[in-house]
C-alpha cells in the first residue's frame, strides 16, 4: 500500500498536493472500518484505493478518454471523426460495436495503460504509427488514449458489463447522445446520475444534430441541459455535433485537446472517485464524532466491573482463607508448644484452594491451577451486567455500527474469563508466611518450655535422691519456680500473642486483597477495556482517515 502513496506523491507537482494524503486517508479508513461497518461501501472504497493507486502508478502523462453512449448514437462515427481514420465499424445494424477499440496519440507508456484497461491488442491503434505528417493539431492531442466503447443499452448484456468496467476506469468520459435517445432512463439513471460528483471529467455530446431542424436545436440543447441539471450535472459542457457531416467535431477535438494538455483529468478523476467513496463510507460509518473518546467511562462503572470480576474470581473467599491461614500459622508458632501442634490437625484453608504453593512451588508448577468453584449464574450475570454498563458508556454517542462493534468487542474475550481469573488469582503472591516476630516468640516459648522441663527434671532428681537440698531464692524453691514460670509464662505469652496474631492476620489479608484486586483489575483491562479501546481507536482512525480523504 505504501507504494501507492509514493506513486501518488510523485504527482505532487501536478497541482493537487493533497491527493496522496487523501488516498492514504481513505486507505486508513478502509482498514479501520473493515469488519465493523457494512461490507459493501468498505469494499467499494478499497476498490477505489486500489484503482486510483494503480492508475497513478501507470503513465500520468496520458489521458484515457472514453466515448460512451447508446447504440446508434454515433460513438464509432465520433471516434472515426476524431481520429480522422475510418477505423471503427459503423452501420445501421444494431448493436454495431462489440469490442472496445483504442487509438493512441504519442507512444510512451501507453502499452501498460492499455494492458490495464484490458483492450485487446488487435483493437489498439497508434495514431503516430500511421504514416501521416503530424500536424499541429495532432501534436495537441499527444498523450490522448481514445476508447470507443460498446453500447450500454442494447440487448447484448456483455456490452453493458464492458461499459460498466471502463466507465469506472477512464480519466475523461465523453457521453455521446442523440436526438432520439438523449432522455433515455438507461443513460441518466444508470450512468449520469451516479457521476454527479464527477462533473470535471465529463463531456456530453449531442450527436446527429443534423437530423434536427436548425430552429429547434437551441430548444433541444436547453432541454438536454435541463435533464443534466436534474442529474446534478449542470456544469458539464454540452456540444452539438454531427460526426457524419463533421459539424462540431473540431470543437470537440479542441475540448478534448485542452483536457489532454493540462493533464488534470487523471487527478480530477481520482479525486472525484475518492470523494465519492469516502462520502459513501462516511455515510455507512455514521457521522457525528465525539472527540473526547479516551477514558469516557466513569470510575464508578470501572469500580463496579472490577468488583464483579473480583467476586467472580472468588477474591472474598481467598482473602478469608488468607486471614485464617496466616492466623493458623502464627498461632502455631506463638502458641504454647505443648498444645500448639494440635492446630496442625486442622487443614490449611489455602491448601483446600490449592493456593498454598508459594513462590518456589509456583516456579516448579508450569501453570498453577486453583480449585476455586465454577462461576455461578449470579456471578456470571453480574459480570455481564457490569461489562455491558461499561460498553454502553464507552459507546455512548457513537454511530450504530461502531456502538455495535464496541459492544461485541467488550464481550469478545469473556469466554476466557474463568481461565484468566483463575490464573490471575493463582499468580498473586498472597504473603502467607510466619512473621519474624512469631519466630522470636517461638524461640522464647521453647526457652520457657526448656526451663520448665529442666525444673521438672531437677525436682524429680531431688525427689529420687533425697540428698540434695534445693536452693532457695527469696523463700521459693528454684526448681519449682522454674516449672511454674516455664508453664505459666508460656501460656501467658501465647494468650498475649493471640491478639497480635489476629491483627497481623487481618493486615496480611488486607494486603492480599489489594494484590488480588490489582491482578483482577489487570484482567478487566485485558479482557474488556483493551478490546473496547481498540474499537474506539479504530473509530478515531476511521474518522481521521475520512477527514483526510474529504479534506
Amino acid at each position, binding site marked *: 500500500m505504501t507504494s501507492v502513496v509514493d506513486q501518488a506523491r510523485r504527482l505532487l507537482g501536478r497541482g493537487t498536493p493533497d491527493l496522496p494524503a487523501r488516498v492514504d486517508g481513505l486507505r486508513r479508513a478502509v482498514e479501520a472500518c473493515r469488519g465493523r461497518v457494512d461490507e459493501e461501501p468498505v469494499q467499494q472504497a478499497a476498490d477505489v484505493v486500489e484503482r486510483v493507486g494503480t492508475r497513478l502508478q501507470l503513465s500520468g502523462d496520458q489521458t484515457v478518454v472514453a466515448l460512451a453512449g*447508446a*447504440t*446508434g*448514437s454515433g460513438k464509432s462515427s465520433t471516434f472515426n471523426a476524431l481520429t480522422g481514420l475510418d477505423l471503427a465499424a459503423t452501420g*445501421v*445494424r*444494431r*448493436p454495431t460495436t462489440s469490442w472496445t477499440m483504442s487509438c493512441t496519440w504519442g507512444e510512451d507508456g501507453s502499452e501498460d495503460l492499455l494492458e490495464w484497461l484490458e483492450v485487446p491488442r488487435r483493437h489498439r491503434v497508434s495514431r503516430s504509427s500511421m504514416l501521416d505528417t503530424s500536424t499541429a493539431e495532432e501534436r495537441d492531442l499527444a498523450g490522448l488514449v481514445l476508447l470507443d466503447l460498446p453500447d450500454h*443499452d*442494447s*440487448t*447484448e*448484456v456483455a456490452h*453493458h458489463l464492458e461499459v460498466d468496467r471502463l466507465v469506472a476506469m477512464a480519466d475523461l468520459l465523453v457521453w455521446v447522445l*442523440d*436526438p*432520439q*435517445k*438523449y*432522455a*433515455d*432512463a*438507461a443513460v*441518466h*439513471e444508470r450512468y449520469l446520475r451516479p457521476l454527479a460528483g464527477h462533473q470535471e471529467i465529463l463531456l456530453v455530446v449531442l450527436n446527429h444534430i443534423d437530423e*434536427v*431542424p436548425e430552429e*429547434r436545436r437551441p*430548444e*433541444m440543447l436547453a*432541454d438536454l441541459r435541463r*435533464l443534466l441539471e*436534474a442529474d446534478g450535472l449542470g456544469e458539464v459542457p454540452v456540444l452539438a455535433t454531427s460526426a457524419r457531416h463533421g459539424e462540431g467535431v473540431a470543437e470537440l477535438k479542441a475540448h478534448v485537446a485542452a483536457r489532454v494538455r493540462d493533464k488534470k483529468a487523471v487527478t480530477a478523476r481520482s479525486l472525484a472517485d475518492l470523494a465519492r467513496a469516502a462520502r459513501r463510507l462516511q455515510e455507512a460509518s455514521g457521522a457525528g464524532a465525539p472527540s473526547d473518546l479516551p477514558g469516557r467511562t466513569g470510575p464508578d462503572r470501572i469500580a463496579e466491573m472490577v468488583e464483579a470480576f473480583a*467476586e467472580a474470581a472468588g477474591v472474598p473467599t481467598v482473602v478469608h482463607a488468607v486471614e485464617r491461614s496466616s492466623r493458623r500459622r502464627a498461632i502455631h508458632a506463638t502458641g504454647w508448644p505443648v498444645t500448639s501442634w494440635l492446630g496442625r490437625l486442622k487443614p490449611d484453608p489455602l491448601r483446600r484452594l490449592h493456593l498454598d504453593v508459594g513462590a518456589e512451588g509456583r516456579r516448579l508448577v508450569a501453570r498453577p491451577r486453583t*480449585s476455586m*468453584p465454577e462461576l*455461578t*449464574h*449470579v*456471578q*456470571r*450475570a*453480574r459480570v*455481564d*451486567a457490569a461489562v*455491558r454498563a461499561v460498553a454502553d458508556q464507552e459507546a455512548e454517542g457513537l454511530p450504530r455500527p461502531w456502538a455495535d462493534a464496541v459492544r461485541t468487542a467488550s464481550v469478545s474475550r469473556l469466554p476466557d474469563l474463568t481461565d484468566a481469573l483463575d490464573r490471575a488469582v493463582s499468580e498473586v503472591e498472597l504473603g502467607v508466611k510466619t512473621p519474624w516476630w512469631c519466630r522470636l516468640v517461638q524461640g522464647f516459648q521453647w526457652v520457657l518450655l526448656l526451663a520448665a522441663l529442666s525444673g521438672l527434671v531437677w525436682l524429680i532428681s531431688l525427689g529420687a535422691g533425697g540428698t540434695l537440698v534445693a536452693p532457695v531464692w527469696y523463700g521459693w524453691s528454684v526448681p519449682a519456680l522454674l516449672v511454674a514460670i516455664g508453664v505459666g509464662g508460656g501460656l501467658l505469652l501465647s494468650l498475649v500473642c493471640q491478639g497480635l496474631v489476629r491483627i497481623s492476620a487481618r493486615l496480611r489479608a488486607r494486603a492480599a486483597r489489594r494484590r488480588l484486586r490489582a491482578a483482577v483489575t489487570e484482567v478487566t483491562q485485558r479482557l474488556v477495556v483493551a478490546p473496547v479501546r481498540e474499537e474506539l481507536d479504530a473509530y478515531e482512525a476511521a474518522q481521521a482517515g475520512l477527514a483526510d480523504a474529504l479534506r
Partner: protein
Amino acid sequence: MTPSTHRYGSGPRTPETSDMVTALVRLREALRAAELPLDLPGVETQRRTRAQLVDQLEDYVLPRLIQIEAPLLAVVGGSTGAGKSTLVNSLVGSVVTQPGVLRPTTRSPVLVHNPADADWFDKDRILPDLARTTGSSAGPGALQLVATDAVPVGLALLDAPDVDSVEEHNRTLATQLLGAADLWLFVTSAARYADQVPWDYLRAAAERSTAVAVVLDRTPPDAVAEVSSHLARMLTTRGLRDSPLFTVPEVPLGAGGLVEAEEVTEIRGWLHLLASDSNARAAVVKQTLDGAVRNLARTAHTVADAAAEQAATVADLHADADRAYAEAAERVEEASADGTLLRGEVLARWQEFVGTGELFRSLESQVGRVRDRIVATVRGRPQPAQQVSVAVEAGLQTLLLEQAETAAERAAASWRSVAAGRRLLEAAGRDTGRDLGRASRGFRADADRAVRDWQHALLQMVRCQGADKRSTARFLAYGVNALGVALMVVVFAYTAGITGAEAGIAGGSALVGQKLLEAVFGDQAVRRLAAAARKDLNRRVGELFAAERARFTQVLDGTGVRDAAADRLRDVARRIDDLRFAAELGPTAAEQSALHDLEASDEEAAR
C-alpha cells in the same frame, strides 16, 4: 371459430364466463390481501408485479370479460423518439396528439375512437383511475379522448407514453396502458430496435401471448432492407414469429407534421381490416385475453410465493424472539435450581442465620440439637431472616436483569442478520425511541416486583400450610419468616443437581432447612410446598419474559403479513386454471371441474 360459439363471444354471457368473472374478482381481492410489507431481497419487483396484476385485472381483464363486445383497443407504445405520436397522427390523418423533438413528448395518453364508440370509453369501464378529458391540455393522470371518423367503428387507438425515458411516471403509465391493450402496436426505430428496454416489454408480451404488431419507424430508406430483416430475425428468435412487422421509412414530414399517407397505408389497411372483420377481431381479443388470464393465474403463484416467503420470514423472526426468551427463562430456571444461587451472598446470610457455617458442615445426624440452636438464633436475632430473603432477592434480580438483556440482545442480533428484520428494528426504534435490543425501561422495576411478589406468595403459602398447625409449639417457635426463608433455600436446592464440593456447602445448608421444615410440616408437605413455590417462580419469570418478548411480536403483528394470504391466492389461481381448462375441453370437462370444485369447497367447509 365464430363469435357465437366462442366462449368470449359477443352474445350474452355464459355461465362459464360469470364463473370466471367471479374467480377473477376473488383473485383481485386475494391479491389486495397479500400485502408484501417486509423488505426481503427482490421485494420491489414482487410488489410491482402485484400492483401490475391488480391494475391489469381492473384495467383490462375484468372489463373485457364482462363486455366482450367492446371495441378493440390498440395501444401504440414504444421508445421515446421512435415516432409514436407522428404515427398515430398519420394514421388518423390529422394532428390529434402533439409530437415534438424534445424528449419525452407525450405526457398524457390520447385515446382516438370513432364517435359511435364514444359510450365505451367515456365511462370508467377501462382504466378507471384515469380522469377523462376532451380538451387538449390534459395533464398527467388524465386520459384525453378524441372522437374522429378517421378511425373505424370497433377499433380505438391509444397513444401511450414512452417506456424508457427519464420520466418515471411515463414508464409506469405506459406499462399500465399496455396491460390494458387488446393489441399492441409496438413502435421502434432504426436506432432503437435493439434496445434492451423495449425488448423486455416485447418478451413479456410474448410470454403472455398478447397480440403484437411491430412498426419499424424512422428507418433511412437505404437501410430498410437490412434493418427490417434483422428485426424480423430477432422477433422470430424471441417468440414473436406471428407478429406482423410494418416498416415506415424516415422521410421528411409532410403538411402538419404527418407522414405521407402512402407510407402508412399498409398499417391503416391492416387496422381497418381488423375493425371490419368481427372474427379476426374476436380472435385477437381471445388471444390477448386468454394470454392475460393465463398470465394472471401463473403470476399469482409468484405473488403467492412472495407472500408465503413473507409469512415464513415473519414466522422465522417470531421463532427467533421466542427462542431467545425461552432460553433466558430456561437459564433462570436452571440457575435457580442447581444450587448455585445458594452460594456466595445467600449462603453467607443463611449460615449466619442458622448459626455458624462451620457448625453445620457435619450435621446430618444431629438435627435435633441443631434445631435448638436455630431456635435460639431465630428468636434472639430476627434480623438474619430478613437478610437471607434480601440476598435471595438480589441474586434473582441480577439473574433476571442480565437474562432479559441477553435475550433482547440475542433476539435483536438474529433479527439484524436479515435485512427485513433490520428494517423492522430500525422502524421500531424510531417509533418507540428505544432500542429493541435492550431490555425495556421498566424491566428492573418489574423484576423487583415479581421477585418480591413471589416471596410474598411463598410466605403466604407457609402461612396457609401452617394454619392448622398454628397452635403447635414448633410453628410458633420458628415463625413464618424463618420457615419461609428455609423454604426458599430448599427451593433453590430442590432438584439436587449439586455435585462435588457444593454438596457439602449448599446441600448441607439446604438440608438443615429441609429438616427444619419437615419437623414442622412433615416431609410430604415440604416436597409439595417446594414444588409449588418453584412452579410459582417459573410462572412469574415466564410472565416477565413474555412481556419482554411481546415488544418483538407486536412489531411483527404490525406488519400485516397474513399466513393465509398465500394459500388463498393459490386456491383462486388454481380455480382460474380449472375454469380455463374446462372452457377449452368443453362442457363435460366443465361439469367435472365444477364437481371437483364442489368437493373442494365441501372440504373447505368441513375444514
